[in-house]
């Protein structure tokens, strides 16, 4: 193994860029799992759904995938609100969310995935956009635009979410619902409605994350599975429900994965996030920026 400074710098930069994209994937789970305590393991399946939405419109009309995903946000929002409503009526109300709620989302993961397989087949699909080919060269450092653009938009998304949570009434109500539902009710706010909005927002982020995913790599229906462990590892490592923590954790995992695949071979990279997950759970379960 030849160690060179060039290689190291490039690995770190691409890790940070990929990390920015991971943050978009993890931000939705950070909302649903971190704040609302809903273990939505079907989230990667919704991300793949977002990828296919971007693919369909890009392939048919040549629209920009990120633009498509922004237009699709309301559709995903409605989907999320619907799913929360079912989840609430069937599980949260009866107090059965732990076992059956998990099984419910696991079932949704499979239904979404197989439905996509039946409709689109198992071939890899990709999209076309102006930023997919070119690479910027900053000195020795290569910045491929197909990763840099999603990273930038993803950071914008997270900044917007952070503003929403910290500055608006709805956002503060979402933070409050995680702490004390009764207090919220005393303020004449319906906690179920707030939770529905928050969960719907979390699913809406999957639309954007899906577009980023298909820009970065070709997608087939079951690639989402590779990201389940990674997304939850990021959430736990970053500290449940903390968006800045999610960004830091994503970049950390991105960099370590990138270094691992540069210096030890790509086949070892998937083990990184699990190592982090176990380490965090064993040493500091509250995560980096946990409350």
């Amino acid at each position, binding site marked *: 193994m030849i160690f060179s400074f060039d290689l190291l710098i490039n690995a770190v930069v691409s890790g940070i860029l990929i990390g920015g994209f991971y943050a978009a994937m993890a931000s939705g789970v950070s909302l649903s799992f971190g704040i609302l305590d809903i273990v939505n393991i079907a989230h990667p399946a919704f991300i793949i759904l977002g990828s296919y939405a971007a693919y369909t419109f890009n392939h048919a009309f040549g629209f920009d995938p990120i633009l498509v995903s922004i237009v699709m946000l309301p559709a995903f929002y409605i989907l999320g609100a619907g799913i929360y409503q079912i989840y609430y009526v069937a599980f949260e109300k009866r107090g059965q969310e732990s076992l059956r709620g998990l099984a419910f989302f696991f*079932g949704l993961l499979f239904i979404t995935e197989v439905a996509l397989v039946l409709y689109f087949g198992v071939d890899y699909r990709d999209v076309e956009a102006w930023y997919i080919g070119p690479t910027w060269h900053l000195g020795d450092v290569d910045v491929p635009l197909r990763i840099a653009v999603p990273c930038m938009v993803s950071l914008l998304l997270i900044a917007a979410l952070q503003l929403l949570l910290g500055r608006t009434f709805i956002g503060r109500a979402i933070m409050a619902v995680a702490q004390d539902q009764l207090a919220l009710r005393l303020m004449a706010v319906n906690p179920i409605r707030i939770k529905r909005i928050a969960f719907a927002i979390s699913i809406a982020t999957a639309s954007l994350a899906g577009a980023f995913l298909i820009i970065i790599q070709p997608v087939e229906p079951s690639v989402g599975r590779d990201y389940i462990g990674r997304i939850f590892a990021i959430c736990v490592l970053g500290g449940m429900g903390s968006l800045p923590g999610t960004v830091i954790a994503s970049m950390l995992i991105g960099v370590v994965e990138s270094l691992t695949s540069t210096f030890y071979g790509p086949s070892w990279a998937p083990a990184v996030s699990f190592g982090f997950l176990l380490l965090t*759970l064993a040493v500091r379960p509250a995560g980096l920026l946990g409350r």
Partner: protein
Amino acid sequence: MRTLPFLVISLVIAGLVFAAALAIGNEYIFFAGYVVLQYIVLSTAWNILGGYCGYVNFGTGAFFALGAYSTVAIYNFIGKNELPHVIPMPVLMLVGGVVSGIVGFGMGYLTLRLRGAFFSIATLALAVVLQTLVINWDFVGGSRGAYILRPESVPLLGSYIRYLFLAMLLLAVGSLVIARLIERSRLGYGMTTIRDDELAAEASGVPTLRVKLIATTISGALMGMAGAPFPYYIGYLQPDSTFALDYAINAIAMPLIGGTSTWVGPLIGAVLLDSLQQLITVTISSAVNLLIVGCLLVAFVILAPNGIVGLFRKYFRHKHDDFVGRHRTALDEPGSVPAAGAAPE
């Protein structure tokens, strides 16, 4: 019923099943039946942790694959060193069980002190990591996969698939007996209290961590034992398909469809669901088959949270209430029994 008579009756039923399979005289019955039996073991094993304790394990595929790859490792070790004799299947099962049990224990120790969701997520990630390890481990074939040569025939039984079928049949009986034994023991009551209210269980003196660790270890070990004969069944073992999440969804769907609170539930769920799957795979396609499993799982957890067993109980209790109800409504709490009997669906 005590355990010993139950064991004897189960063995007699198992004997009848085997005799019936022999009587049909079609080798395909053994191939299809093996998979049903394998899922009886997997869903029973999942239910010991999931149904009794309430901790969801998504890593069924990982534990199963650990058992399968233990067998491959032993097989290759024998092949490399040119050792002459074939290791008997019970020994392979035992090794697979021990390996999976140890991994289950280790992972449980790290994550079970936290909330249940963390354990579930860790099991999901475990599958990915073990798969990474296996892909990078050339001795068991790496990403290319591993071939296992099945012996042509076995004395007394004839074809090798009959031998595998018999081994899995006995393992299924064993796991059902274990599950039933746990269910009626102090350990089982401890598990049930953990599922209902962990804090209250801890406060009443249930050693929760120890009980959970025992459940994880037994559950993992049984899954590993179910995986050990798999390389001989399939002939060619490949990491992607062995670690697949398909095992996890089946192992979760079967107990939840059958009913998680008793040992009968996983048995009913596995027999019904897997027979249905075999039928769909043959007649339509294997993708549709997973779609149906997913839909059934979601439908059951929403509409019939206690599974088929729960539906049966409700039906019979309903009748029972109607029968005795008249006396009770008249005598003590008027209104309470009709309310329970007429509980909306």
